[in-house]
Every structure is written in structure tokens, then in C-alpha cells.
């Protein structure tokens, strides 16, 4: 008889902090420079050089700690994690071990469900290593130390996630959080948001954790899910055939969608952690925590509930907006011109604007049409001064020429002002030509209004504003009643 197995997942997420300079040196922290052009003597571990902590990195770690309701350590300690690797310049990585800066926080998988919260055991600051690039065919390895010294916040969850789907949900929520806090750009391709997964299985109903495998090299949500599922199946198969799972580090291979052994526990490094004598303990004053708390941006959960309660947005639309802080900011900025219907703005943003952005490969934060300009355009349609049918054309015009919404709308209105008197004629014509339908309306079949609007639109050759027509028609129908 087949037994039931429970999956247990713990995640370790490396969040690259968006500081201007590296964690222990003044070198720039930006991505994409030529190899080894962004590494100074401190990053290269030259004899005699010393690390000096970047306070911005400390502040970003505190920001995260506050946002997940964690304890911020009054005193945290940097330790050395010793191991040899060519892209680790000093022969040790400066990290935090026994006294991390953030401990014991939580983050919900489902924003409104308290019991979906996953415990964040700790989050600690550390420096990243460089990169080794293996040119196997030419038989040599290149080393790029630009990344050496990049500040990372390593976030470690309790082993309490129960499915690969939940793991992905949690990671999406975490990514949403760190990007909204503006402490990380969340870019998984560039490695700004990386994840290792500790996976084990145990018989349903038991509480003792099974032996885990740590899976590395997971740089997309899809891969993480696939790796966890593969690992679950592999471990269950082993256990059901009477074998043991061994504790090891496994690499995910995106081509085969399988994990393979990288090193077993006996060959794990003994990192010989000890407090780094070059750095003093990081002492954090309560007033610093309070001032960071006071300047914390609105958290995604709060934003989500506001979008739902105040703006009446659906959960699906909200998720789309919160996917990137710049999109939600753009959205909110567009409303600031006095829009009554947020959904209209949402539709314009996620529809035509997204298409234009994608076409030009531009991020929304660099959009050629500003949020308030887009807002003014939508407002004109909302107030009826611009027919909705004209919106797309004008938005494209704004995008191409940079002309303001106001000027284009005024131009449009002067062009269509002739037809204001035409509208009166068309209305009269439609009412006389469709006697039967007018009667039906008056006898209570109000749905017929749509048909009548359509007839007027036809006469206007699509130039008429349906809302205006709607209003005018109603006026006439009711007046003659």
C-alpha cells in the first residue's frame, strides 16, 4: 500500500540590496560593468586593506526587519566564513552567523489569511563573492570580481512551507515586499533575487523532519517549482524503495529539469566561523529603528487592502499592479488628477500603455507619457469631453510626439465641435426612424437603449461619444414621455 508523504520546504533567499556602493568599500554597486572594472583594492582583498560597513546596507536590513515584524538586534556581529575559492578574494566571506541583524519575522502567503504566515527565522547581511566563468573548451577559468562585496540580505524561512505552489507564492510575496520597500530591484535574471530550497519529505502525520537536500542554482520561479517537484518525487521514490535520502547539496539542471548531487555532507566545508576582528559589532539604537519605521513606504498588504476597499479593485487587478512598485506608483499618480473610476485608468495602463512600453522596451518608470498626463486623458473621457473612441489615437499621439493631453484633447474637441449640432439632428432622426423601439423603451424595456445608441453612433460614423449620446437620448426619451 502506498503511503502518503508530506513535503517540507525551507527557503533561503539572497536579496541583493540596492545601495549606491558595496557593503564594505566605496566601489559602485551597479550591474553590468566590464569584468573587474568595478572592484577596488578592498574588494580584491589586497594585503593591508580593511572593510568599513556601509550604513545604507544596515538601514535597508532594518527596513526589511520592520516590514516583516521581526526583532532587530541591538547588537549584531559580522563573522568570517572561511573557505577557499578563486572568486572569493579574501579566502573568507564576511557574513553574520550567531548574531544576525534581523530575527524572527513573518510574512503571509495569502495577504488576508493570518495562518498562512511563514516564519522568517533570520535575515543577515553579508557580502557576495565574485563570479567564476569556466571556459571548459579553452581549458581555463575567468574570474570577475565586480560582484565581490555586493551587499546581500540572506533571508531564511523556517522549514514550514508545504507545497511547491506555496513556495512560489511566498517568494512572489517576498519579492513584492522587497521591491516595494525599495531595498532590492527584484531582478531574478541578473541575480538580484536568488533562492536556494531545502526540501525534505516525511510520512503524513509525523512531525520529525526528514533528511533534506539543499537545491541551488534556482533563478526563476518556474525552475524552483520544477526542482522542488522533482526532488519530492526523487526522495519519495528512494524512501519507498527502502533507501535513505542523504543530506547533500544538489544543483538544478534547467535543461533536464532534474537535480543532481553537487556535494554530500561529509565533503561540506567546515567554515570555521568566528567574529571578524576587523569590524566592530553593529550597534543599533532604538531611535534609528523608530525613524526608519516612520519613513517606511506603504507595505504591499496595506496597499492591497486599500485598492480593494477604497478603490474597489479586484484582487487580480491589484496583483497585476503590485507586481512592480513602479506600476502601482504610476497607477496611483494617474488617479491624482481627480479620476473617479480607477478601473478606467487601470485598463488604459495595462492595455494600451503596456503595449507601447513593451514595443519600445521601456520601463514604466521611464514612460514617455507621464502618469498625470495619462490621468488627464482618462479624465477627459470620464467627463465626456473626449469620446472614448478617440483615447487610443490620442495616447499614441502623446507617446510619439510628446504633446500634452490637454493640447491634443482641445484640438480634437475643436475638430468635432461641428458635430455638436449634428448630434441633435442624428438623435431626432433615430427617434423618428425607430418608432417601435422608442415605444418599447417607454413601455419599460429599457434595454433597448443600447440599440438606439448604436443607431446614433452609426450616423456619427463612430465619431460620437457614446456616453454623451446615452445622456442626450435619455433626456429626450424621458422628456417626450
Amino acid at each position, binding site marked *: 500500500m502506498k503511503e502518503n508523504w508530506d513535503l517540507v520546504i525551507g527557503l533561503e533567499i539572497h536579496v541583493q540590496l540596492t545601495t549606491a556602493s558595496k557593503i564594505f568599500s566605496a566601489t559602485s554597486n551597479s550591474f553590468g560593468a566590464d569584468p573587474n572594472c568595478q572592484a577596488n*583594492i578592498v574588494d*580584491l*582583498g*589586497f*594585503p*593591508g*586593506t*580593511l*572593510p*568599513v*560597513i556601509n550604513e545604507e546596507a544596515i538601514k535597508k536590513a532594518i527596513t526589511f526587519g520592520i516590514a516583516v515584524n521581526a526583532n532587530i538586534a541591538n547588537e549584531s556581529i559580522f563573522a*568570517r566564513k*572561511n573557505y*577557499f575559492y*578563486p572568486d572569493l*578574494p*579574501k*579566502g*573568507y566571506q564576511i557574513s553574520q552567523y550567531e548574531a544576525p541583524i534581523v530575527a524572527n519575522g513573518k510574512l503571509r502567503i495569502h495577504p488576508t489569511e493570518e495562518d498562512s504566515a511563514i516564519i522568517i527565522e533570520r535575515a543577515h547581511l553579508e557580502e557576495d563573492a565574485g563570479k567564476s566563468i569556466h571556459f571548459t573548451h579553452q581549458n581555463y577559468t575567468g*574570474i570577475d570580481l565586480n560582484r565581490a562585496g555586493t551587499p546581500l540580505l540572506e533571508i531564511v524561512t523556517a522549514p514550514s512551507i508545504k507545497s511547491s505552489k506555496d513556495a512560489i507564492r511566498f517568494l512572489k510575496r517576498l519579492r513584492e515586499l522587497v521591491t516595494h520597500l525599495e531595498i532590492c530591484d527584484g531582478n531574478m535574471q541578473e541575480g538580484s533575487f536568488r533562492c536556494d530550497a531545502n526540501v525534505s519529505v516525511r510520512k503524513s502525520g509525523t512531525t520529525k523532519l526528514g533528511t533534506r537536500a539543499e537545491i541551488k542554482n534556482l533563478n526563476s520561479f518556474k525552475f524552483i517549482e520544477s526542482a522542488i517537484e522533482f526532488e519530492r518525487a526523487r526522495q519519495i521514490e528512494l524512501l519507498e524503495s527502502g533507501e535513505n535520502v542523504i543530506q547533500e547539496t544538489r544543483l538544478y539542471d534547467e535543461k533536464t529539469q532534474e537535480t543532481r548531487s553537487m556535494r554530500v555532507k561529509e565533503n561540506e566545508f*567546515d567554515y*570555521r*566561523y*568566528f567574529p571578524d*576582528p*576587523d*569590524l*566592530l559589532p553593529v550597534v543599533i539604537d532604538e531611535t534609528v529603528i523608530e525613524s526608519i519605521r516612520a519613513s517606511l513606504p506603504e507595505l504591499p498588504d496595506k496597499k492591497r487592502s486599500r485598492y480593494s476597499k477604497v478603490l474597489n479593485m479586484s484582487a487580480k487587478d491589484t496583483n497585476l499592479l503590485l507586481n512592480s512598485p513602479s506600476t502601482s506608483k504610476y497607477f496611483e499618480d494617474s488617479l491624482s488628477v481627480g479620476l473617479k473610476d480607477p478601473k478606467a485608468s487601470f485598463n488604459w495602463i495595462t492595455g494600451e500603455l503596456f503595449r507601447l512600453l513593451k514595443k519600445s522596451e521601456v520601463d514604466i518608470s521611464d514612460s514617455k507619457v507621464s502618469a498625470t498626463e495619462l490621468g488627464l486623458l482618462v479624465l477627459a473621457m470620464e467627463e465626456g469631453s473626449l469620446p472614448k473612441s478617440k483615447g487610443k489615437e490620442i495616447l499614441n499621439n502623446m507617446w510619439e510626439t510628446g504633446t500634452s493631453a490637454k493640447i491634443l484633447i482641445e484640438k480634437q474637441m475643436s475638430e468635432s465641435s461641428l458635430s455638436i449640432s449634428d448630434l441633435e439632428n442624428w438623435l431626432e432622426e433615430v427617434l423618428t426612424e425607430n418608432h417601435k423601439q422608442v415605444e418599447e423603451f417607454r413601455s419599460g424595456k429599457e434595454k433597448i437603449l443600447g440599440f438606439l445608441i448604436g443607431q446614433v453612433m452609426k450616423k456619427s460614423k463612430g465619431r460620437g461619444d457614446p456616453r454623451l449620446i446615452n445622456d442626450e437620448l435619455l433626456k429626450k426619451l424621458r422628456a417626450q414621455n
Partner: protein
Amino acid sequence: MDDSFPKEILKISDGLKKRKFSSVEITKEYLRRIKAYDREINSFITICEETAIESALEADKRIAKGAAGTLAGIPYANKDLFCTKDILTTCGSRMLSNFFPPYDAEIISRAKENSLVMLGKTNMDEFAMGSSNETSYFGAVKNPWDLRKVPGGSSGGSAAAVIANLTPLATGTDTGGSIRQPSAFCGVSGLKPTYGRISRYGMVAFASSLDQAGIIGHSAADLAFFLNIIAGFDPKDSTCIEKPTEDYSRNLNFPLQGIKFGLPKEFFKTELNSGLQQIFANAISLVEKLGGKIVDINLPHSSLSIPAYYVIAPAECSSNLARYDGIRFGHRAPNTSNIEELYEKTRSEGFGAEVKRRVLIGTYALSSGYYDEYYTKAQKVRRLIKNDFSEAYKSVDFILSPTTPTTAFPLNEKTDDPTLMYLQDIFTIPASLAGLPAISIPAGLDKGLPVGLQIIGDYFQEARMLGVANKIQQTTDWHKLTPKSNSEKKL
């Protein structure tokens, strides 16, 4: 040496200011002496003839403009573990025998700003690990008092160069006694300031929580003037203490009346030979004669200093020296076929026996399962030793002891017995573990070899400590004694 060139810093400075001689002249004279006498002593690894004369010319110009400080134009030498831009910095090791740093250590920058003239880089025990200067890849340094004897270490080159009159001043570093012990063996004055008083930036690290830059010279007064330049906060070193400096020469006429000097009972459980005992007793009675009050004190945990030190220092060293992997700088073993082999050969060839021994001890002490038993316990001992001193300084102003348990010993005598060698630092390590300032000054000769008197001060008491030392030197000639060794006879 030509009588027109004085040895004392103030007198050299005065001569330069009054244009009795130029910096170029005195620099050339020291360079000549180094070339003439250092072949035997081996106190220099690198002699910077060209750059020295260039800086002397600059200093002369600055002096002529009247824009120069006390030390402008004065020659000095640097221990070869201070990084000097584009000048070979070996740390006494094959590993760095090809290392030209792209930057200056903080104290080198400060000396340059003050127009001091660097004569060269002095020999030392490899990576500052040793008490005899015999672990240098560039050969042992000989003690100018007796060329068959060691000069002490690790700053043996600096101490030997000063007493042989090859430089009036030299920098050193002290981790467990590396300035004080060679100063005692060579009969010069050597200061280890409070930990954090001088920037470590650009000092090749041995044991970061203990390493402290300091100075070796002919007298306490000379040290005070140099300390004025190099002491002070440096934001590039997180362990450097942000506390205002003071004029370290202001207390040079320090009256000893009523000043209390503690003699730690535990220090005298170590067997000293009668000659050393006599010399130390003489020094004590001198201090009393000058008005000082001698008090017996207890430093109950001092016997644990050496074991604690030889866990902490190697632990830090094992990590600090991990960067020498043949990848970015320093020695790289040729003809290796994979990364493990590159590491193994590079480090086997690049490091000497004592460095390897300490890397191994340190790696062991930090490894999982042993960490608490060794490293954690050693840190606890360190705290107890600190507390002992704090307790002692409630009742005394300074602590006195011999600097070393013996005078300079013969070359090769202790090289086969590291634990015997480690005992050399029995009186100097406690202050190192506590981070306290200490100075060794000459107190006379025992069988023709210098004996050092150690004065340990409370934190940041350098000015008063130098004052006490200077008071003793005002009333004695011990610091003026010079060797009549073979090399000196040729003068």
C-alpha cells in the same frame, strides 16, 4: 658618523631648520651607512635610495619655505609590512617577494604629508610571526651588539637598524611583543600604543585584534614626536578609535613624585637570571629615587596569557592569510593543473615553517567541535586579563616589569623549539591581549647585552607613559649605550 649629524630628532630638526645641514646630506649619510654596515646586520630588505633622495629634496624645499613641521626632512625606515605604493612590500615572506602595493598605508601617507624621508623597508619575521627575526625569507637579522645573537622579533630589522645608527627612527608593529622585545634585545626605545590609537590600514594583517603599529627610536622623546604625526582616527579602519589625539611631547618633563608603579607579583614567578634581576632592581630603585611609589599588584590570570594568545593570534592569522592563494597577487606556483594543486603548491612554497605552523594551529582552533574549547575559552581568558588590568589601574598609574625573561639569545638556539620561543613574550603578551599601551626602554647591560624595562600604561596614557620613560632617560645614560660589535668597530 660625522659629528655634525646629531642622532636626536629634535637636534636633527633644529639642524635642518637652521640650515646647518640639509635633508639630502643627512639622508645620503644614512644611505651610505646602510650600504656600508647592513650587509652583516641584514636589517633592511629594500633600500630606497632614489625615492629617499627625491623626498629629501622636497623636504629641503619645504623647510626653506618655512612651511615644515618638526619631522620634515628626517630620515626613517618602515617595517616591511606597511604597504608602500609601488615599493616592494614583502612582509618577510616569499609569498610577497614580488608584491608592489598599489597604495600607501595610512601611517606612510601621514609620514609623507609631514615630509619624512623613507630610507627603506626593514627586515622582519615572516608575516610578523617570530621572536628572533629568524623566520624571514630574506635571512635572519643579526644583533648589532653581538652578531652571533638574534635581535629579537618580529620588528628585529627596525630595532637593529636604529641601534646600528642606520636610521634615527623606524616603524614597527607589535602583536604580542614584536616592538618591545626586539627593542629590549637591541637596547632601543620601542612604543606599542593603545590598540586603535594608530590606523591599521595598509598594515599587512597577522592577528587583527592584536596588531598595533608603533615606533622604535633612540629615546622616548623621539618616539613622542613621531607619535604626534601617526596617531589619530582613520575612518578606513573600523577598529581605530575616534578619540582626539594630544601633544605626546607635552609631558616629557613628567614629575614622578607620587606616581604609583605596580609590580605584578605573577611576573616574578618566572625565573630571571641574577644579572637581569639586578638590572631590574636598579631600575626600580631609580624610579623610587625619582619620587615614584612602588606597589605590589596582582594580575592573577597573566599565566594564562601565552596559551590564550597562541589560540587567538593563530586563529586570526589562519583566516587573514587565506587571501594568499596565488590568484591575484604574490607568489604563484608554476605548472599546476587544477585549483587545489595551485593552492597547495603556492602556499607550501610561499610560506615558511612558522607561518604554516600557526595557520595549522589556528585552523584547528576554529574548526567545528574545537571552537568552544579553544577560541571561545581563549576569548574568555582575554576578558579576564583585561579585567585584571582594570582592577590594577584602580590603585596604580603604571605597571613595571622586565620586557623579556632573557637577553638576546644565540642565533638558531630556539628555532627547533617553538614553545621555548613563545615564552619570550611572557611579559609582553598580557598588555597586547588587553590592548594597553606599553613601552620598552633600555635599562643597562647584562654581560654586554641590553636589558629592557617595560612600562605598561592605562588606555590612552601614551603621553604620561612617554613622560615617565623620558624622566628615566633624563637621569640615566642607558639609552645612549651603543654596541661595540664588529660592524661598529669599522666605523
